[in-house]
Structures are given as structure tokens and as C-alpha cells.
């Protein structure tokens, strides 16, 4: 031993500079999205100094974005595998509507609370199975089909009309408040934080979670090292569906109803939040914290524009601009990083 010369990085950039760049890249990867949140917050504060930082307004932002936060969290896991789930908005609606329909039918509340989870997970499993065992060429196609199927089912079981009135127990997660140190904190905030923590532990600290990243990075490498790629993918889509169902439960609670148009286009908001949060659309890259920041950016932007009485159409335009700007910046940064 001791005869092999060290394998060194094939680069002419001095090591110190290289590692400084690498460290900066990692730092931006990890915390870049939080920077955008800070910018958004500052902007909001300057524009609406009297309203923005009130507890009421902050609670409002969280309450309104809680359902998006769960959708984005599920979408994020799918995007890490280099997949996409277009069906989450429809899954949300189907879960919500199933709960409302069963509520009218007199099903007791503990079962009602379980319903959206079961419906969401079932939809997710079907997506995953279709993708893997049926060998659909791309998740876009499987979940596009599911987008239509779930929306159609939602209309079918409700006759296309909203159903309102849910038991208080069912509404609690989405609409309840708990008093923390004298502050009224929405229960949905706790739900979101706990879900994000759980997914963070899953992705960073379990074998299956690391395999999710490996699949996104190089599915071939995952396969040859004995990772069960198909089973992992089915699990990820199932979890995504489950979170979409959970999201439906929160929205049902907040609106005290199930309505057939719920979550139309929400899949695109979820994808936007994930991308703004710094995850790579090509898989393998991104953090739970980033997704949380992405959701906050969208929530704060809507809040700011609402407070400032800006026409709702501008919201769409601005979200579009932010998505493009964030990704353009990311591409630029990577190019600088790899050029050195």
C-alpha cells in the first residue's frame, strides 16, 4: 500500500477558491429560498407597515396557505424522484367531497376524519402502480389521466354541487385555534409544521428517504445497488396522495364544506412552490425547508397584493415572474459554479 498517488480533482482552480465556491453553492442551496422570504417580508412590511406584521395577518397567511403547504410537500417528494403529480388538486377535491358526502350520509366523525387520508392514499397508490407496473412512459401521463378521473369522480358523487356543513370535530384541524401563550394560533399551522418535520425526518434520516434522493439522482445507480425502485416510487406517490387528502381535510374544515371546484389549478401552485423553494425539476435536489419557504413566498405575495388592493390577475403574473426569475438565477449560479 501507499504507492497510489492521491486522486485529485481535475481542475486548475485552487482548492481554497473551489471549496469556497462549493460552500457558497451549498449555502444557497440550503437557505436561498429563505432569502426570498426575507425579501418578500421586507417588501410587505414597507408596503403595509400597519397591517403586515399583526398577528392576525400572519395567522391569516398561514391559515390560507396551510392546504397549499401540504400539497407542495407531497409534490416535493414526487419531484425529488424526478417525477410529477398533476393529480393533487383533483385528489384534494375528491377527498374533500367524499368526506362531505359521507358526512351528509351520517357517518360518525372519527371515520370522516380518516376518509380524506384513505381516499388520497388510494389515488396515490393507483398513480404509483400505473407508473411502475403498467410502465407508463412518464408520470405526467399517468397523473394527467388521474387529474381528470378524480375530478370527474368528485362531480359524480356530489352531483356537481357544493355540500356544506361538517361536524365541528372534522373542522377542527382546518379551522380551529389553540391558545399558545395568549396567542390564538391556527391548528393548521401545527399540522403543517408537524407534517414538514415528519417528511424531513423521512427524507433525510431513513434509508427509504435516502433512496428517494438516489432515485432522483440516478435511478440506474439505485437499481444496481439493490434499491427496490418500483416499491419506493409507489410509496412516494402514495404519500403525495395522502398529503393531498390531508390538504382536502384542512380546506374542508376552513370552508365548512366540500365543493367540486376545490383545488382546480392547485397542482400548479404546488409545483410553483416547490420550484421557488429551490428543488430541481430534474430530481434529486431540494429541501423541505426550501419548499416551506416557497409556500410562504406564494402566500405572502398573495397577501401583499390583497392588502394593497391589487387586481387578482396581477398575482398570477407575479407568481409567473418569480418562478422564471428564481430558476433563471439558479441556472446562472450553477453555470458560474461549474465554469470555475
Amino acid at each position: 500500500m501507499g504507492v497510489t498517488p492521491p486522486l485529485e480533482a481535475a481542475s486548475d482552480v485552487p482548492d481554497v477558491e473551489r471549496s469556497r465556491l462549493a460552500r457558497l453553492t451549498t449555502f444557497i442551496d440550503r437557505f436561498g429560498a429563505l432569502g426570498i422570504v426575507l425579501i418578500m417580508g421586507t417588501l410587505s412590511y414597507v408596503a403595509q407597515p400597519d397591517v403586515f406584521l399583526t398577528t392576525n395577518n400572519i395567522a391569516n397567511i398561514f391559515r390560507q396557505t396551510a392546504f397549499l403547504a401540504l400539497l407542495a410537500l407531497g409534490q416535493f417528494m414526487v419531484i425529488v424522484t424526478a417525477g410529477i403529480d398533476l393529480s393533487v388538486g383533483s385528489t384534494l377535491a375528491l377527498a374533500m367531497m367524499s368526506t362531505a358526502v359521507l358526512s351528509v350520509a351520517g357517518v360518525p366523525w372519527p371515520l370522516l376524519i380518516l376518509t380524506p387520508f384513505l381516499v388520497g392514499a388510494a389515488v396515490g397508490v393507483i398513480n404509483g402502480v400505473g407508473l411502475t407496473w403498467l410502465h407508463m412512459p412518464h408520470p405526467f401521463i399517468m397523473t394527467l389521466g388521474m387529474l381528470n378521473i378524480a375530478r370527474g369522480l368528485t362531480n359524480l358523487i356530489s352531483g356537481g354541487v357544493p355540500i356544506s356543513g361538517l361536524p365541528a370535530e372534522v373542522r377542527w384541524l382546518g379551522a380551529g385555534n389553540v391558545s399558545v401563550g395568549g396567542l390564538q394560533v391556527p391548528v393548521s399551522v401545527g399540522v403543517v409544521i408537524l407534517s414538514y418535520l415528519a417528511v424531513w425526518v423521512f427524507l433525510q434520516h431513513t434509508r427509504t428517504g435516502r433512496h428517494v434522493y438516489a432515485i432522483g439522482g440516478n435511478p440506474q445507480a439505485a437499481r444496481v445497488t439493490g434499491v427496490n425502485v418500483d416499491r419506493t416510487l409507489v410509496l412516494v406517490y402514495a404519500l403525495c396522495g395522502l398529503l393531498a387528502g390531508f390538504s382536502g381535510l384542512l380546506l374542508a374544515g376552513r370552508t365548512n364544506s366540500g365543493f367540486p371546484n376545490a383545488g382546480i389549478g392547485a397542482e400548479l401552485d404546488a409545483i410553483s412552490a416547490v420550484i421557488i423553494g429551490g428543488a430541481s425539476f430534474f430530481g434529486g435536489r431540494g429541501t423541505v425547508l426550501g419548499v416551506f419557504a416557497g409556500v410562504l413566498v406564494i402566500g405572502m405575495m398573495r397577501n401583499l397584493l390583497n392588502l394593497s388592493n391589487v387586481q387578482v390577475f396581477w398575482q398570477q403574473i407575479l407568481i409567473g415572474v418569480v418562478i422564471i426569475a428564481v430558476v433563471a438565477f439558479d441556472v446562472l449560479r450553477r453555470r458560474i459554479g461549474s465554469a470555475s
Partner: protein
Amino acid sequence: MTPAIVARGLSKSFGHVVALSGVDLRVDPGEVLGVVGDNGAGKTTLMKILSGVHPPTEGQLLINGEEVRFASPRDAQRVGIEMVYQDLALAGNLRIDENIFLGRERTRQLGPVRLVDHRANLALAKQHLDNLNIHVKSVGQLVEQLSGGQRQAVAIARATAFDGRVVIMDEPTAALAVREVRKVLDLIKDLKTHGISVILISHRLDDIFYVCDRVMALFHGRNLAEARLADVDRNEVIGWIMGNKGGHGVPDRPDRTDEAR
């Protein structure tokens, strides 16, 4: 000395196509065997049988003198046969230690859940790389930050991390920059000192002559020739690849290759 791996009379047909026909192979512990042959000579099929990807149609495999049958690559890994791919089958977005232990991570129990023991994996990976004399800035680096040669070194480290006794390498230098080839070859030489056997498939005779102890040639799915490296020269081996066993000049097809047609 019991050979690390012995194959006797391996044959493999895919439908009517005979890919391999009665091939023998033997590798001793700590020996590097080069396998050469033209495209379609059966090298890849042979490696896929040895690594458990395909079951042979006929023939026998002995590991340390005991007969084995593989239903999957996992079975082959269990008896210490590992594969290193030319296309660097690594996940660039994961750390070095995560790639080395991918699919076989150490875990620790925390209440009801089993968590990856990142600290143990990092420490074990570092120890293993040190053992193999592979130098990287940090085992916590992402693999995508490494050069091609370093990545191949990580792939080789992965193949030897779990008591790999026989490492099969399919064109391990094909994707590398010229200046990195030598380093990877030196690493292969180093494996010998750990008693690890290597089966090296390569088109590059430079690689074969630099690192191998013995070389064997396949032609049309059969053994054509075999010799200790000290006993052959480059032209002879080139002749073998073209199916020319005897001299150096005009191709002189041995009878057995005619049978294989």
C-alpha cells in the same frame, strides 16, 4: 490455493442465439484476470452470469470451492462478487459515504423508527477509503463534485466495502480522462494486496498489460486462448481478439470457432 472463483462449461442462449458456449474461467485470490475479445465475443454475457444478472443455461460456478447459483445480483453480492460499471453507476446528488453504502446503510434504532446512522456511515466510509489509499477532500462531499477518476475510485470502494472478494469491472477506464486512467489502474493493482480478485474487461491493451496477471480471450462465445501476461506479447493478444490463435499474420481460424457459427 483454492481459486476465488471457478466457472466450468458456462453456456448461455437467448432463444436461438448462442451467446456463450462451454466457457471456463478461473481466478485466484489477489489475481487480476483480463478478459479480451471483440464485440459480441461474449464478454458481457459472461460477466452478467458471474454477477448474477443472468442465470447460465448450462455450467457450474464455484466460489471458494463451493458450488453457487445466483437468482439475482443480490445473491452474487452475498458471496462477495461485486460489479463496477463503466458508466459510473453513482448518484451524483448524494455524498460519497451514501454512495458507498447505498442500499446497505447502517442504521440505528430510535424508539419505533430505524434511522440512518449518518455518523457511522461517514466514519466507516472514511476508514475504508483510507484503507484503499483513496484520497478525497471529505467523505461528506457530493459525488458530483468529484472528477471522473475519483468517482470510479468511489465505485471501486463501494464494490469492496462489503467483503467483496471478486470485483468484476466492465471497461472501468472507458469514461475517464487520460490522466486519470493510471490512477484507477493503480488502485486496481492495490486491491491485490488486500487479497481481492479482479476480473477486468477492457478494450485497452494498455490497461490489460499494465494491471493484469493473466489474460484470456473469448471468441464467438468460446474460450480461445489464455496465458500469463509474462508469456504473451501485445501482437499475440491482438491476434486473439481477431480470432487468430496461432501466429501474428494471416487470420487462421481455429476449428472450434467454425463450430460456433
